[in-house]
């Protein structure tokens, strides 16, 4: 699939500090693309560069093959952006905010009302359309903010920490909303410090560390490449972990370790291995607790960053 946004060898320096070091990313169309990284890793600068605020010192950003620098007006027209803050006017109603930002985004007046109604339905704010923005709850406000970013039907929606400061339920609402938006073939680029959420939501992610892209791909690819295997954590009454492991020699187990009271067994397919593990425990001991853990993006992230630090330290 051709990339909708191409970030080609983008370098950005502030004085002697290299904030982005030859960053290259291909962001495909109609996908949810996550950018994750530690604080100070260059995420913010990358987003600033993508929306055209910072001009790269080297390299370029292309939207559908058109240069950001040369076609800023076109790109502003196809990009919607929602920041961590809610960029709306508190003293305007929900509908007024949408109509105002629609006008600013060159939505023709004859289609603006239709767009507004459609977006209000999408973000489920139809019932609150005449409420002042300042009267909305946190979740509604965030939905309004995203709605404002969508009012001109952008092809690309960039969300900076979209679930920031929301409680788990509202977070789930917003994630569902993002999926719904994406179902309408809108490309979504988001940053998030909530890696679990990114893992669930994003089709592809890029991990940035110290201004460089460490890895990019689907979460599954990353997990396969950079995480340990799936894990079975178990605790038995007599802790005869050596005996249990001896009975599992030919069960496709990749390894084991004891951490505290628990025996951790690594496997390519934990669900399949679990059957053998439970049989072995039954024979020599009594099971108290068992837990099956799949690899996470957090783990990938930690492994990658640890590796980078180790490389750096020599």
């Amino acid at each position: 699939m051709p990339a909708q946004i191409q970030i080609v060898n983008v370098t950005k320096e502030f004085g002697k500090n290299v904030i982005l070091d030859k960053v290259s990313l291909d962001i495909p169309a109609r996908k949810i693309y996550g950018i994750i990284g530690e604080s100070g890793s260059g995420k913010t600068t990358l987003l600033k560069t993508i929306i055209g605020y910072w001009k790269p010192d080297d390299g370029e950003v292309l939207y559908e093959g058109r240069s950001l620098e040369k076609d800023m007006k076109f790109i502003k027209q196809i990009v919607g952006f929602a920041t961590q803050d809610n960029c709306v006017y508190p003293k305007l109603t929900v509908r007024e905010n949408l109509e105002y930002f629609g006008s600013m985004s060159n939505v023709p007046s004859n289609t603006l009302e239709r767009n507004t109604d459609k977006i209000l339905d999408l973000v489920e704010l139809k019932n609150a359309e005449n409420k002042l923005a300042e009267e909305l709850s946190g979740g509604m406000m965030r939905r309004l903010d995203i709605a404002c970013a969508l009012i001109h039907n952008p092809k690309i929606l960039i969300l900076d920490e979209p679930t920031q400061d929301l409680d788990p339920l509202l977070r789930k609402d917003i994630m569902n909303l993002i999926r719904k938006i994406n179902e309408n073939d809108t490309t979504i680029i988001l940053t998030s410090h909530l890696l679990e959420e990114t893992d669930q939501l994003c089709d592809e992610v890029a991990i940035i560390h110290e201004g460089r892209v460490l890895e990019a791909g689907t979460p599954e690819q990353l997990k396969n490449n950079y995480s340990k295997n799936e894990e079975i954590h178990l605790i038995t009454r007599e802790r005869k972990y050596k005996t249990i492991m001896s009975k599992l020699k030919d069960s496709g187990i990749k390894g084991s370790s004891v951490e505290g009271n628990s025996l951790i067994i690594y496997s390519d397919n934990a669900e399949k291995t679990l059957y053998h593990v439970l049989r072995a425990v039954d024979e020599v001991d009594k099971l108290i607790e068992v837990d099956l853990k799949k690899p996470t993006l957090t783990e990938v992230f930690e492994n990658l960053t640890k590796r980078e630090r180790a490389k750096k330290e020599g």
Partner: protein
Amino acid sequence: MKIFKIIKKDFKILVRSKSSALIVLFGPLLLILLVGLAFNTTSLQGIKLGVYSPNYNELTNGIIKAMEDEQYKVVKTETEQQCIDGVKMGVYHICVKFPDGLEIKNQAKNTITFVVDQSRVNLVYAVKGTINNKIGEKSKELSLGLTGIIVTQLDKTKTELSSRTGLFSDMRNNVDGVESKLSELQATVNTVNLSYTNESDVYMGKLIQQVKSIEADLNETAAWNADIEDLFDNLKDKLDIVDERLTALSALEGSLNGGFGNIKESLTVNRQKINEVESSSNQIISDINNIAVTDVESIVSPINTVTEPISVGKSNLNYLFPTLVMMVVMFVSLLLSSTMVIREKTSSAYFRNYISPTHGFIFVFSTFITNFLIVLMQLIVVFGVMLYFDPKMINLLVNVSGVLLLIASVFILLGMAIGYVFKSEETSTLGAVSVGSILLFFSNTIFPLETLPTAIREVVKYNIFVVGEELLRKTILFEYGLEQLLVPIGIIAAHIAVFIIVIILIRKWAVARYNIHKHFRNRKIKS
């Protein structure tokens, strides 16, 4: 102590916010420094006086020289109207009109007229006071001269009269002598007995009787002889008496002749003395008549001054109106626009506008128009009040509106620039008030600009408050048309252009950066 901790924290926050620190701490100091440097003078400088006189003579030239000695630049105008128009145009600070044939004489109407622009009341009083002093000095000098002539004449008269005092004494002595002589003559005359009337009557009666008797006796001859004899006796007696009397008279005549000779001589002397006195008196009268000015008022104040406003029939409100309107427009525009910009800039919605495909200039222009409409509404109220007090001003409405809206525009743009420079509403408001105060301080409102050093005045004359006030004064008070005000309008237009460029640059470089930073807070990674 918690209080100290809080105070310490407040100071740290204040100092670490550069714009706040600059405005709060250094703003007032800078203001005081500027004002202190600028107004550290007591004299008026660069005062230009227009002077008109139908004919210049020694006196008018003397007064003009006195003004020039005061470092005033005096320009003689060809016509009275030129002189007055010069004040209206601001070319001259005051027009000094001399009367036709200014000279010191009786009943002369030596009234010098100051034609002033009452709307610059503080300057008018300052300059008028100084010129009045100069003319007063001249007037006093003339008054002293006139009084000196009179006093000299009095002195001369006194000397003359003193020198003639002996004459009066001599004349009195002479008169006394004449009086005494006349008394003597009277006494002499009194001694001569000329009264024989009764006796004569008796004698005549007797003589008549004797004649009648002689007539009767004609008839009796004897008796006639006796009677004749008797008659002759009587006649002889009578003649003796007459002779005696005549002798006495003759003596009296001699005596009188001598007496009258003396009197005549005395009178001749007196006449000479009287002639001398008369001559002195004539000389004094002549000298007094030679005093040119004897009119008391002319001596006490030989030159008077009156003040005439350029535009008649206006109240103090009229004169203050342009300044009041300027102050209202300036502060309203500055505060309103700076507040509106800073609120927009610091609102979270600003960022969405920034990243929208709408050009930044559209936002700047829209903000300007919003402010402009609000100021326009306020000006409508101001105009309403103005027309209520002076319905004639309806004729000026178009010109005044044009000028006011131009002025409002420049202040709105300045306010917007301030709003874009500062980061918080508080500092922006402080900035707007400070800028407004500086513009106000360096205008004619508090002190005349003429009190400033020349170099500073050359800069300050482009102060938009000064230019705007001049525009308003000329439009409202002197009813100038816009075509006559192209220079100040040009200056305002230049300011507008500069402010637009400044706003666009600031918005592009500073404000956007601030807001983008604000919207990209760093977050820690959480799993």
